[in-house]
C-alpha cells in the first residue's frame, strides 16, 4: 500500500514533506486537505489527524503528524534516502535536531505571526492585529539574524553541512511563505541577510526541479494576494479623498 501524504501546498511544512519525498523518489499518493475551505475540520480528516493540521502521513496502518517527526521517519523507513538528509553520525544528527527544535519557537513563530496578521487574516475578513504582526516581525528578524550569524556560519547549509539535510528543506519552506507579503516588505525584511538569501538559492538548486514545482501554488496565491491588496489600497485612497 503506497504512502499517503495529506497536505496543502500553501502550508510550509506540507511543502517540505512533498519536496523530500519527490527528491528521494519515494512512491506516495498526495491527498489535498484544503485549509482555506477548512477541510482539516472534516470528520474524515479528524480520523487521520486529531490535531486537524497538515501535513500528516499514513503508512500502512501507521499514522503520523508533525513534519519534523515525519521527515525523520521517512529518512529511516525508506532505504533509498541519501544519508546527508539525516546523517547517521550522532553529532551531526544532534545538531540537526537542535535547529529543527529551535525553528518552532523562532523562525516559524515569527513568520506565521507576521504573515497571518498582515495578509491571511485580513484577507479572510478577520480583524487585523497590528501589534501581533509587529511582534511577529521582530521575532522573524531576530531569527534571520541567528540564521545568518550562527546556523549558517560554517557552511552552505545549516549546522555547517556541505549538503542539505531535512532541516534545510523545512526552514527554507518556512521562509518562502514571506513571498505572500508585498515585494517591498519581503525585500526589506530579507535582503540584509546575504547568507540566508544564498542558502535559499542553494537549497532550491539542490532540490530542483521539485522545489519550484511544489511552490507553484504559493506563487499563484502571491500574485492574487498582491493584486487584491493593491485594489484595496486604491479603494481606500479614493474613499479618503471623498
Amino acid at each position: 500500500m503506497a504512502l499517503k501524504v495529506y497536505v496543502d501546498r500553501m502550508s510550509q511544512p506540507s511543502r517540505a514533506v512533498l519536496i523530500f519525498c519527490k527528491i528521494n523518489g519515494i512512491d506516495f499518493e498526495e491527498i489535498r486537505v484544503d485549509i482555506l475551505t477548512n477541510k482539516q475540520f472534516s470528520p474524515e480528516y479528524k480520523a487521520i489527524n486529531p490535531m486537524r493540521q497538515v501535513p500528516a502521513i499514513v503508512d500502512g496502518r501507521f499514522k503520523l503528524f508533525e513534519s519534523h517527526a515525519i521527515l525523520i521517519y521517512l529518512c529511516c523507513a525508506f532505504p533509498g534516502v541519501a544519508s546527508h538528509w539525516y546523517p547517521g553520525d550522532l553529532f551531526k544528527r544532534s545538531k540537526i535536531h537542535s535547529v529543527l527544535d529551535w525553528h518552532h519557537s523562532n523562525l516559524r513563530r515569527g513568520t506565521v505571526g507576521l504573515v497571518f496578521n498582515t495578509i491571511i487574516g485580513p484577507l479572510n475578513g478577520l480583524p487585523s492585529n497590528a501589534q501581533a504582526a509587529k511582534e511577529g516581525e521582530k521575532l522573524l528578524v531576530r531569527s534571520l539574524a541567528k540564521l545568518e550569524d550562527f546556523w549558517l556560519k560554517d557552511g552552505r547549509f545549516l549546522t555547517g553541512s556541505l549538503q542539505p539535510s531535512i532541516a534545510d528543506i523545512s526552514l527554507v519552506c518556512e521562509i518562502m511563505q514571506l513571498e505572500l507579503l508585498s515585494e517591498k516588505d519581503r525585500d526589506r525584511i530579507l535582503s540584509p541577510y546575504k547568507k540566508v538569501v544564498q542558502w535559499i538559492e542553494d537549497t532550491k538548486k539542490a532540490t530542483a526541479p521539485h522545489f519550484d514545482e511544489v511552490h507553484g501554488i504559493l506563487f499563484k496565491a502571491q500574485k492574487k494576494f498582491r493584486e487584491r491588496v493593491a485594489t484595496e489600497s486604491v479603494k481606500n485612497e479614493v474613499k479618503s479623498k471623498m
Partner: protein
Amino acid sequence: MTLKVYCDRMSQPSRAILIFCKMNGIEFEEITINILKGEQHTPEYKVINPMCQVPTIVDGDFTLFESHAILIYLSCKYPGVASHWYPSDLIERAKVHSVLDWHHANLRRGSVGVIINNVMLPLNGVPSNPQAAEEAEKTLEKALTVLETFWLKDGPFLVGRSQPSIADLNLVSEVMELDQLLSKELRDRILSPYKKVLQWVEDTKSATAPHFEEIHGVLFKTGKELREQLASQSGKNE
C-alpha cells in the same frame, strides 16, 4: 572530561535533563546559570550558547542546546540508558518525536504564556495584556485537553507507552511549573479537570523517584515564596 550541564532548576527543560542524567547514572557537572539574575546574558555564557538560554550541554568539544535534542543525544551516547527512554523501534520512536514536536507550540507555549501573565508580570508590577493572557489560557487548556484525550489515551505514559520516555520527563516538568507557580485557585481551575494528566504526573514522579522530588526542590521552595509574595501584593491592593 565530564559532561557539563548548564541549567537552572527553575527551568522546565533543565529539570528534564537533570532527572534523566541522574536516573541513568550519567556522570555530569551541574553548572547553574541563574535566569532570574540574567546570567544567561553574560558574555561568558553567550560563548557557550549564543541563544542565551538553558539548558546547554558541553561534552568534550561538542556543545548542544535545545532540550529535546540533548535528551536524544544522551540516550544514544550512553550505552547504559534503558531503551524505553528513546525506543529504537522506528514507529515508537516516531511517536515520541511527534509529541516532543507538538509540545513546543502547544503545552509549552500555553504554559509559559499563562505563567508570564499571571505570575511574572504581576510580580514585577507590570500590567498584563488581557488579550495575550486570554490567548495563553486558551492555548494551555486546548493542550491539556489534547493530552487528556489523545496523548494519554492508550497508556499510563505518553503515546501509549507502559514506561516513561524522554517526552514524559519534558512535558511533566512543564506541568510542574504550572502546579507550583500558579495561585491555588488558578491551579485548581486550570489543572483539576484533567484526571489522566494529574495521574500521569504522579506516575512519572514515581518512576523517577527519588530524583524527581530532589530536582524539583528549588521550584517547590521558590514557588511557595512567589505565591505568598503575590498574595500579599494583591491583599495590599485591596
